[in-house]
């Protein structure tokens, strides 16, 4: 059935949200282009194996996420910072202060979050996905996605609050 999906229309429909997801994870334009492109290359080679055409979107996002994790494992170039438990109350960071941040600062904070929260939080804010879709993309139960999202949002805001308080500048991606 997947053979019936025209490749170009598939690319046209999904390359932008896939790129944004990739950029949220990789924080680097060429890397994000590479991940997006590789995702469609895998589709060209294996997409015919997908029987349910309604799953194309989640298949593409799942594939991109797997590719990202695979490359990161190989390169170990995304340093992780151990974070304490998220505070039960969200930090007092004002919407205006967040608005003054640039996208790079926000993605820098995302990259410093625990691994397990990064992809769900990116998918959450990109808004193309329901909770069920996020669960399907990440291959985890719905309840797990919700708890990861709640904790991930808390961590992100905690990090942003610290960055804003410290006047931190965005860190360039580590290559």
């Amino acid at each position, binding site marked *: 059935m997947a053979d019936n999906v025209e490749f170009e229309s598939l690319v046209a429909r999904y390359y932008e949200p896939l790129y944004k997801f990739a950029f949220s994870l990789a924080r680097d334009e060429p890397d994000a282009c590479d991940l997006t492109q590789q995702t469609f290359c895998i589709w060209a080679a294996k997409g015919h194996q997908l029987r349910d055409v309604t799953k194309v979107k989640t298949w593409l996002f799942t594939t991109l996420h797997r590719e990202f994790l695979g490359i990161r494992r190989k390169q170990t170039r995304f340093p992780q910072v151990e974070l304490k438990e998220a505070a039960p109350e969200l930090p007092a960071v004002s919407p205006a202060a967040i608005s003054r941040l640039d996208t790079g600062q926000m993605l820098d904070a995302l990259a410093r979050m625990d691994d397990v929260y990064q992809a769900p939080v990116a998918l959450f804010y990109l*808004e193309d996905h329901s909770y069920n879709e996020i669960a399907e993309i990440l291959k985890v139960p719905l309840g797990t996605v919700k708890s990861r999202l709640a904790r991930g949002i808390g961590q992100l805001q905690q990090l942003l609050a610290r960055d804003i308080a410290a006047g931190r500048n965005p860190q360039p991606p580590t290559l």
Partner: protein
Amino acid sequence: MNHDEAKTILMLYRPGTADADDPQIAGALALAKREPELARWLEEHSARQEALRSKFRQVTVPAGLKEQIISESAARVVTISRQRRNTVFAAVAAMASVVILLIVLSSSWIPHRQNDDNTMAIYQKQMVGIALRGYGMDLTTNDPAQIRAYLTQNKAPSDYSLPAALQKAAFTGCAVEGWQNVRVSMICFRTGRPLPPNQSSDLWLFVVDRGSLKGAPESNQPRFAAVKGLITAVWAQGDKVYLLGTEGDESAIRKFL
């Protein structure tokens, strides 16, 4: 449901989306309508969330990415059709035809990508990405002559000139890759270092026509750079640009130049 439970649930609420259809969120929203304190918290939380969402929306997609995906996938499809000719020839050939047709159409209908996409740096990262993430070798052989013949046959750059040290390295095979509508020859070698069980190569050479790269080096003196965990050397000779990559530091690659 108390206030704390409602707050926990509403942390996941994205106004203007289908989230409000979620029964738990719907219940928490109903409570917020009745409880002014919770309503104030929700208002501030929603404003904070909207500020964060706007940052994600500001991520812009590079011009020309779509065309690049289509063109490079077309090159892969052609490769696959060669490899699986006996089993899936008809299906793949049909797909390749569609993709090639689309490329031809897009070249006249869609404005060409900006030159900024055509940079040496992006090419370098893309090719290193291919080496790192695993690739399908089109031809597995230790015979340099067979590699050259295969690349000639498949219209990829084959009139390359290898440094003397690289000529003596152990060849493992080759593949034809794509870069913005042009073919790139990928020649694979083994350095002799121990490799993981599923890896046959750890030194890769990419050869492309110089005219296809903006910012390509003009010197035949190698320029070294660490890219995605590999050390790379880039140089030009004649009308070709060479990119050699392997793991390690500059000394690891210098011995092949």
